[in-house]
């Protein structure tokens, strides 16, 4: 039965059982929210005794921080855009151009989620590095002495690596939403004289938008938080917020500054996370990512 019986399902037990949520909540509070709160406290307090925004003022006006913030945002935006484009193209072919092994390939790409992110950064050294395969080949072919391709140690290297690593997070929800498009829908569109581009624009793309939004916003969050790739490529001048936090804390032992930057970084991340939550709440189902 039906609309009326439906709400009954949720009320399986008479007492609300609030107390059961307390143990995990306590555990997480001690190990996560308490440290988080101390970061904020340290950032406001520093070595002083009273709360003040003076540390924020000092950090926010420094060129180092502004550069890092800019790089973080630019890299995250570019990488997420790249993930969306690449993910869309791959998902299109995997879903709508039948070929043997498409499922297997989709699963292979999926296993990239299980690999350490720095694997890609490291391999890029061998492929696109100054002594990498690409440059050596080009030097042989073009008879030049200096490596002609030099994007790896710039923001581009980081962006390309992040696109590789995070595309699966777009691909997953896209494949899920494409599997809901009935083949008949495309066949009918085809029989009505629509070409592939028109079908992509008018049938597939609209259906893919929730998945693209969910996957894209998740990518934005993950690329903002990415540390391993940036660290491994360690391009000169490409410093992002997480890397700056690490430098300040571990290299400079300046915990107050590190906490200020971390608080800013966390604020940015939580904003992006709320964006992601809003999108999946608004468009339903496609919890793109890791879950």
């Amino acid at each position, binding site marked *: 039965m039906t609309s009326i019986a439906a709400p009954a399902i949720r009320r399986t037990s008479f007492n609300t059982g609030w107390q059961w*949520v307390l143990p995990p909540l306590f555990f997480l509070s001690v190990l996560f929210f308490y440290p988080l709160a101390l970061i904020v406290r340290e950032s406001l307090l520093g070595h002083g005794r009273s709360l003040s925004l003076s540390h924020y003022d000092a950090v926010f006006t420094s060129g180092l921080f502004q550069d890092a913030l800019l790089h973080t945002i630019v890299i995250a935006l570019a990488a997420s855009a790249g993930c969306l484009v690449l993910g869309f193209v791959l998902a299109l072919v995997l879903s709508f151009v039948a070929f043997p092994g498409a499922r297997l390939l989709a699963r292979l790409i999926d296993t990239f989620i*299980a690999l350490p992110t720095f*694997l890609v950064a*490291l391999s890029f050294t061998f492929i696109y590095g100054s002594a990498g395969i690409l440059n050596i080949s080009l030097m042989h072919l073009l008879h030049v002495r200096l490596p002609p391709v030099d994007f790896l140690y710039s923001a581009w290297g980081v962006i390309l690596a992040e696109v590789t690593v995070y595309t699966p997070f777009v691909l997953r929800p896209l494949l899920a939403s494409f599997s809901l498009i009935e083949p008949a829908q495309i066949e009918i569109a085809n029989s009505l004289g629509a070409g592939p581009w028109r079908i992509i624009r008018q049938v597939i793309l609209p259906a893919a938008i929730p998945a693209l939004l969910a996957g894209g916003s998740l990518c934005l*969050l993950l690329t903002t938080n990415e540390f391993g790739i940036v660290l491994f490529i360690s391009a000169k001048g490409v410093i992002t917020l997480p890397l700056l*936090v690490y430098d300040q804390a571990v290299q400079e032992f300046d915990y107050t500054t590190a906490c200020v930057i971390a608080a800013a970084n966390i604020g940015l991340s939580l904003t992006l*996370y709320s964006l992601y939550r809003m999108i999946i709440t608004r468009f339903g189902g496609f919890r793109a990512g890791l879950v």
Partner: protein
Amino acid sequence: MLVWSRSGRIGAWLLFSLLFGVIYVLPVAVIAIASFAGQWNGVLPSHLTFAHYARAVHSSLSAELRVSLITGVMASAVALVVGTWAALALRKIYGASRLVLDIVFFIPSAVPSVSVGLGLLVAFSRPPILLNGTIAMVVVAHFVLTSAFTYGNVSAGLARLGPEFEQMAESLGARPGYRLRHVTLPLITPYLIAAFSLSFALSMGELGATMMVYPPGWRTLPVGIFALADRGDIFESATLTVLLACATLAVLVGLSYIPTRAASRR
């Protein structure tokens, strides 16, 4: 089918193969080759060798693999218990408080790992809880970073379970504990395994928080790999990356073979 013409289809395949090849096959292949490379001055390595692997096995680096595995299993186990507990408990809560708690349990996944590490450093270097310099710091960091994913996976499993099996168990006289042990948990076993697998994989590759908090003598493999790469030993770091990836995938494949009788549900 979206593309009817033969040439169009071949074109699509070629595009896909090119993208897939350059973006996914090439990096993995190159890392694998580099892990065997003796010298690599030309387009391809001049000769292949097992020397890196031999050294990896005999050096302290195999200890790092052990550290990573132990940390991964411990952190994932704790995350599984906490995440499952939270997901189960949240089913009894309705309305706005449920939404808030759901977000609370998801938030750790949104915070950058370096900041999590920094927070642990700041919080546990002072009373009342002193953990700095202990192994627990690394395990806690990994737990915090993966707990949201186990919670999410188990929640998804419970959402799909539907109430009818548990209600039937209850009508047959099963108390809550018995019901949980004999009906709910067996039925969501696939999700529990998936949750553990994911958090284990994330833990194995974790770098940011670990770099912040690891004590001497408890260096995980990713940290070791970075140290090597930073020193310029990129071939050996490639070898260790391959070992890390293989160890991770081996555990994941092993987990996927755990028989779950609930696997083929209606």
